[in-house]
């Protein structure tokens, strides 16, 4: 019986191999011709072509279209119906008497959004990495229900940002669950989202809550890649936990931390959906970030100012490009090391 099974198994493997080889056989004549025509050195470009086409269509072309919109005016959608305005849209965005006082700028809300982002990004990234690292360190220890807690902390990452934000709106609104709990304990209700400072803090909290799990997983993987014998040696040397953390864990985790840092900064600059649903950029303009400004200018406000939105998004893109290049360089450096 076993022999028959083996025979069947061998046959099916053989069949599968033949089936897998079929496409290669079919394209072989074409490859031979291409190799003759292009030469061996140019042949890799043929294999790269499908990817290059996809990247050109879905990455390069939109950027080029964006550039085209940023140098044209009018509320018409068709590029052929738009007029060339040169760098006027960029000039409008940058026109400011005092960059520290948005009210002196031609587009004050853009500069308020820039100002908010300049505070939001460092604070949110610092809190995000701090909490993610702390959680990863705890979950890297042999604690009870470790797998369960890892799942729990990662769970918000899988949720839609809109779902996350709506959940927090229901918790934080005037008649929300948080005020309900406070009320049942005899405390007065608190306006969590109507005070600008509080709304800003909650925006940071909600975005950290929603994305922390992602960074925690990366850091956890980094922690697990540190050889255990180094810790054992430190234990034998009676090194204190703080010394172990600062002299072993942190230095060895540095390449991973750098990648996490860059990813967190890029994500933080791009923050939109959670805050848009949570506060709509308010109260006033207290939580308006750059992407929110771009969305409102290009899509929510009539007549739609595609040119200004495109110019703002390209400026944001330039900032993100710097961070992405940095991330690529650092990750390459980490790999080389």
């Amino acid at each position, binding site marked *: 019986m076993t022999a028959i099974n083996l025979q069947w198994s061998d046959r099916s493997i053989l069949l599968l191999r033949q089936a897998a080889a079929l496409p290669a056989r079919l394209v072989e004549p074409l490859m031979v011709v291409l190799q003759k025509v292009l030469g061996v050195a140019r042949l890799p470009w043929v294999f790269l072509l499908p990817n290059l086409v996809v990247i050109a269509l879905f990455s390069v072309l939109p950027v080029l279209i964006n550039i085209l919109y940023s140098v044209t*005016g*009018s*509320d*018409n*959608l*068709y590029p052929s119906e738009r*007029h060339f*305005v040169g760098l*006027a849209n960029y000039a409008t965005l940058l026109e400011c008497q005092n960059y520290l006082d948005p*009210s002196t700028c*031609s587009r*004050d*809300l853009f500069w308020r959004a820039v100002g908010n982002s300049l505070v939001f990004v460092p604070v949110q990234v610092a809190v995000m990495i701090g909490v993610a690292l702390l959680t990863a360190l705890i979950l890297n220890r042999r604690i009870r229900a470790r797998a369960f807690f890892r799942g729990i902390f990662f769970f918000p990452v899988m949720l839609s940002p809109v779902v996350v934000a709506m959940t927090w709106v229901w918790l934080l*609104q*005037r*008649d929300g669950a948080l005020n309900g709990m406070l009320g049942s304990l005899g405390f007065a209700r608190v*306006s969590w*989202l*109507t005070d*600008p400072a509080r*709304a800003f803090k909650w925006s940071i909290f909600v975005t950290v809550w929603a994305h922390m799990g992602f960074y925690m997983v990366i850091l956890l993987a980094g922690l697990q890649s540190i050889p255990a014998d180094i810790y054992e040696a430190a234990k034998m040397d009676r090194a204190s936990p703080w010394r172990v953390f600062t002299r072993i864990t942190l230095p060895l985790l540095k390449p991973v931390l750098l990648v996490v840092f860059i990813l967190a900064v890029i994500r933080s600059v791009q923050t939109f959906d959670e805050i*848009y649903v949570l*506060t*709509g*950029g*308010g*109260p*006033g*303009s*207290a*939580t*308006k970030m750059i992407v*929110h400004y771009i969305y*409102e200018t290009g*899509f*929510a*406000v*009539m*007549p739609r*100012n595609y*040119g*200004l939105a495109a110019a703002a998004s390209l400026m944001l893109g330039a900032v993100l490009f710097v961070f992405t290049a940095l991330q690529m360089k650092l990750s390459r450096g980490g790999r080389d090391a």
Partner: protein
Amino acid sequence: MRNAAGATIRLALAVFAVSISFAAAVAAQEISVQGIDADMKILVDKFTKENPGAKVNFRVVSYQSILESLPVQLASGQGPDVSMVADWGGLARYYLNLRPYVDAKYFEREFAAILPPMRGEEPRGNAINGMSGSMTLNGAFVNVTLFKQAGIALPGANATWDDWAAATRKVAKATKTDMAMEMDRSGHRFASLAISYGAKLVDENGNFVADEGLKTAIRKFVQWHREDVMPMDLWGAVGGATHRDNFQDFLNGKVVFYFGGSWTLNKMDSEVGDLFEWMVPDAPCGTSSCTVMPGGGAMVAFKHTRQPRLAARFLAFLAREDNMRAAIGNRVSIPVATTLVETGVEYPGASAPLREALASFTRQVPKIPPAAYAFQGWRYQRAALNSMTTRISQVLTNELTVDAAVAYIKKDVDLAIQAARK
């Protein structure tokens, strides 16, 4: 044999030609129509029955699609032949002038108030750009039960916004109700208050007007928030152009006076029933008028249609008195056409409070001043509405003063016009 083959080819060609011409004839009698109300299908079926050979492909779309997708479709030369539109004046450049195809005098008589705003940047032209059987109106809902419990008399027919603020504050205090007054976070709702206080908003040349009326309205509105007459949860909690409403508060008896609109009437009837007594009062007055903003959808045909006659015939059919009367009666909405406003509409199946509320809304229609219609049909109305919402919220959170906010609103709208014309 050769003859037989030739005859077969000729026959095939003839059949092909006939089928092509038949298809063309069918296509010549076909239009696509979109709306947000499934009840319109009844009228579509009636139209096709009365017009044999005419085919109307009707589809129901979301209101969001009308607001966001339709302008993009029209900008790219696509879209249906006939559609409901919400931005009356903003899309006027795409409308088909129905004048050559319909009884112009009938349209001018019945839709006198809404034809100018539907002309966009040429309100004084003579184009007939569409029709609207029914409209929505901004308006207040008052919890009468709370007034009775507090033993406070309801403000009268010509009560001002200040009268309502004072009365509802007393009622909220006496009955320990959470809030005295609430207003949707919407520039359109705020425009009712502004026009009541004399804000012109748009002048004859199509430019935005930031006048003392607008300033007064913002000052009062901010003052009511500072005095806790209105909660910060709507205008004070969100930023930008985000729309937000808390009508649920009124349904749950948590607010004495809610300024929303006629579209929630059915909700009131079905969800409140006889849980508490409610009413729609006359439009609160300002120093200039007692008015609310008109709104809602209008039906229009587009220039790109290949069937202008059929599209116009369909709109003329919708504008027929019997059809408007039936549609408004079924939908429980507010009439626009002069004859229907004057003679009233029967609402079979509507409850007594609902009928009373509808009558109250209908009574406001003749009071709407030209400024409200002019603003409603202005091409850049959305720019003004969005800016008002954004800037007033900034005043509420102390980012701007009232004067600065008004200056910013003016600047925002002017920049929007300039960018669109650039």
